[in-house]
């Protein structure tokens, strides 16, 4: 296929993908998977081919970054986004604006925190809630020092689950997490 024609086809596809990204809601979210795969196929490793499409790729990347990392529920993607890390890794290789590359790098540093966790200021509120749960259990222990009334890991996990995953529907939450206490040097038990 002639190069200029191929570029125009890619341009059209990327614009269409951008429209989908902007319009995805919880109601039509299932369409995202197909779109993501299609974007991956169209992001060519050939930089010369992608050079004329820099604007389209940048627009698409910004829209995707915004919908994943925003804290606004009305804009935020309703579910964790399959393939998004692969898409970002590919576009990172292209000559995009440095500010976009910085955004991608920041996202890729802890991508799962955007899917399964929350941002720092939200984390503090969450931790306060979690520690309140600890506190309430511990106060019970102080009042009644019989070991058999101390909360077990099951109780603790149930409490944390309800706090940690209350914004997620069942099936999305990865409940396989661990909670440990370390000293400030990273040792697990030397206090």
């Amino acid at each position, binding site marked *: 296929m002639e190069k200029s024609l191929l570029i125009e086809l890619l341009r059209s596809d990327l614009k269409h993908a951008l429209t989908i990204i902007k319009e995805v809601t919880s109601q039509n979210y299932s369409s995202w998977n197909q779109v993501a795969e299609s974007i991956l196929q169209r992001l060519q490793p050939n930089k010369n081919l992608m050079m004329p499409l820099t604007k389209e790729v940048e627009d698409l990347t910004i829209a995707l970054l915004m919908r994943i990392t925003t804290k606004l529920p009305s804009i935020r993607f309703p579910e964790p986004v399959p393939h998004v890390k692969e898409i970002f890794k590919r576009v990172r290789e292209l000559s995009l604006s440095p500010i976009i590359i910085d955004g991608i790098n920041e996202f890729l540093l802890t991508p799962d925190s955007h899917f399964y966790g929350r941002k*720092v200021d939200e984390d503090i509120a969450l931790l306060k809630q979690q520690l309140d749960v600890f506190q309430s259990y511990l106060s019970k222990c102080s009042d009644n020092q019989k070991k058999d009334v101390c909360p077990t*890991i099951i109780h603790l996990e149930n409490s944390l689950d309800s706090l940690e995953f209350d914004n997620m529907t069942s099936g999305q939450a990865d409940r396989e997490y661990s909670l*440990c206490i370390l*000293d400030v040097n990273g040792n697990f038990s030397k206090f």
Partner: protein
Amino acid sequence: MFFFNTLVMADRMAESLYDMKQSDLLKQNLFEIMIPFSVHHLKKTMGESIFSSMDGQAKNFSFTIYSQKKSDMTLSVKCEPMKIQEEEYDEDLIIYNKYLQSLSAKAALIDLNFERPEELKKFELSYGFTVNLGNSALLSAKTSSNIKPVILLLVRKNQLPQKFKYSLMKIHDPIIKKNESKPNI
């Protein structure tokens, strides 16, 4: 039976995530069970004293540890669409899937305030301590000897590996080299 006091230090899920017994894990240092790539990356992005520099703000980060306990093939299946870098990246994935595990963490500095000071030394937490969100600056101003700053670390598995040149570990990492030299059964 497990009791709360022990579990807070390292819960049962830690055995699965860190791929070692709880008793062994409690002798370890988090940064020593990470692969060198991860330690370097964390120091580069979070500074030399990763936890010491925390100021009451929770931090999110990912890291990779040595682990051969891959009970399912979820990771490799999910990584299949990533055949971007062809053979080179495949080699990285092979090493990763055989010997390593990527984890995501959320860490926060907290103060453990022991109601009975003698328990701070023993850390035998059969009962009686309270937990407060910490702040290292505030902590230094406190005179009570029964307060200890610690890191509350919540960890879960990453679905995809961090992007490192794992194939280099086959040549340069003694642990991977040793495992690679073992005959296949």
